[in-house]
């Protein structure tokens, strides 16, 4: 990356971090108990839960892009990306969309209630390897949640990167996550933030249109830019195409994939995508490693 001829490898961060991100317990199937500290409604169907261990000294060290299996006791378990600050591991933050029984039970937890947590699992955004490069973050809908830890990481080490640009799209202004934080980020001089929605009332002050329409406006040096993408599959497919058109190489594009993850360990096979298991080998992948499997309808 600093040499400019090869993209970063997912999962090979500096040792200090690498040593910390594997499921802590020798029993990765056993959930650890966390207490709900705070529940915040982000959108009509999406909530952010802040969790902490009963002993505040204990935390959960993770790398940006990893996920946990969250267990609503008596209901079931669901894989949820970690959306908090990796430099504040004593607080575990998850943003959850209410789509089924488990996520509904998780979203309607009250402060003080207990939740089971297994993890952290999976590969992560190569934020350390991207140092010295420009970073383009492209998120769609709920896809901002797994990217937020990477943004925190980049901003807390801002001098180590070139330009940092965030492009975020959602269906309507009401569907945007982390609105106050987006406003704060937009106010920074060392960060460019573009927000767009598919449709908006006339008092909406910023962009309307799809995420891909904003890519040509990014100040992109294709030879020194690393792109992190997370969002609906269609959005990522079209975003990748546009980035390739703009001259970015496949090994500089990273995508976070979503599959039906169950064990988190690559054992059960639920999340298999061709030769990889999304829970263990992903969810963050270098695009060239999974591109042949992304568009296959039969997998």
């Amino acid at each position, binding site marked *: 990356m600093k040499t400019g001829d090869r993209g970063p490898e997912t999962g090979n961060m500096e040792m200090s971090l690498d040593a910390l991100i594997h499921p802590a317990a020798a029993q990765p199937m056993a959930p650890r108990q966390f207490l709900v500290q705070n529940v915040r409604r982000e959108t009509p169907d999406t909530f952010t839960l802040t969790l902490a261990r009963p002993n505040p000294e204990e935390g959960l060290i993770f790398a940006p892009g990893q996920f946990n299996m969250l267990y609503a006791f008596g209901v079931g378990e669901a894989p949820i990306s970690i959306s908090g600050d990796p430099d504040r591991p004593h607080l575990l933050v998850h943003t959850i*969309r209410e*789509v089924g029984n488990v996520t509904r039970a998780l979203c309607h937890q009250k402060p003080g209630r207990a939740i089971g947590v297994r993890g952290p699992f999976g590969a992560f955004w190569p934020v350390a390897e991207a140092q010295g490069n420009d970073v383009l973050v492209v998120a*769609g*809908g709920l896809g901002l949640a797994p990217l937020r830890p990477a943004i925190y990481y980049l901003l807390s080490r801002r001098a180590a990167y070139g330009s940092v640009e965030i492009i975020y*799209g*959602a*269906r309507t202004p009401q*569907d945007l996550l982390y609105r106050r934080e987006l406003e704060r980020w937009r106010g920074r001089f060392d960060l460019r933030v573009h927000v*767009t929605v*598919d*449709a*908006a*009332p*006339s008092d*909406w*002050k*910023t*962009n*309307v*249109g*799809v995420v*891909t*329409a904003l890519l*040509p*406006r990014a100040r992109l040096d294709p030879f020194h830019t690393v792109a992190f993408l997370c*969002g*609906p599959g*269609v*959005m990522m497919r*079209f975003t990748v195409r546009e980035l390739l058109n703009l001259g970015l190489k496949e090994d500089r594009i990273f995508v976070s994939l979503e599959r039906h993850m169950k064990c988190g360990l690559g054992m059960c096979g639920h999340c298999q995508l061709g030769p990889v298991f999304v829970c263990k080998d992903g969810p963050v992948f270098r695009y060239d490693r999974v591109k042949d499997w992304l568009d296959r309808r039969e997998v």
Partner: protein
Amino acid sequence: MEDLEALLAAHPFFQGLAPRFLRLIAPCAARVTFNAGQFLCHENEEAKQFFVIHHGRVAVEIYRHRGGPVTIQTLGDGDVLGWLGFLKPYHWHLDARAMELTRAVGLDVLCLLEKCQQDHELGYELLKRYAHYLAVQFRVTKLQIMDMYGK
């Protein structure tokens, strides 16, 4: 007139257009400025101008009689507005409102069509640009209407 040629040449839509063509269309062009809130066009009005936006932000809106205006697209530096104005019956089918101070070059549609009629090479060059712009618009519109952020 020369500064208008330079202004048009600097816009992505006219990128690569030969200087002789720029000279031909410059007499059809005029600088226009819209303050925030000012409309560039209204639905059903005669489409007299094709706008080449240099600076600013424009909301493209559809008015719903019970719901008021809804913004379906925003345009900014490097975009164009009014390409459908070249098709008869030359009427706007949308409203466009400046969201902030917007500077553009307005090209007289009838004048431009006349130039294209006189010089088919110019017509072909502009047609290629419209076709490309149209293809991009179709692509983004398809993505927009498929509701890709839905559950």
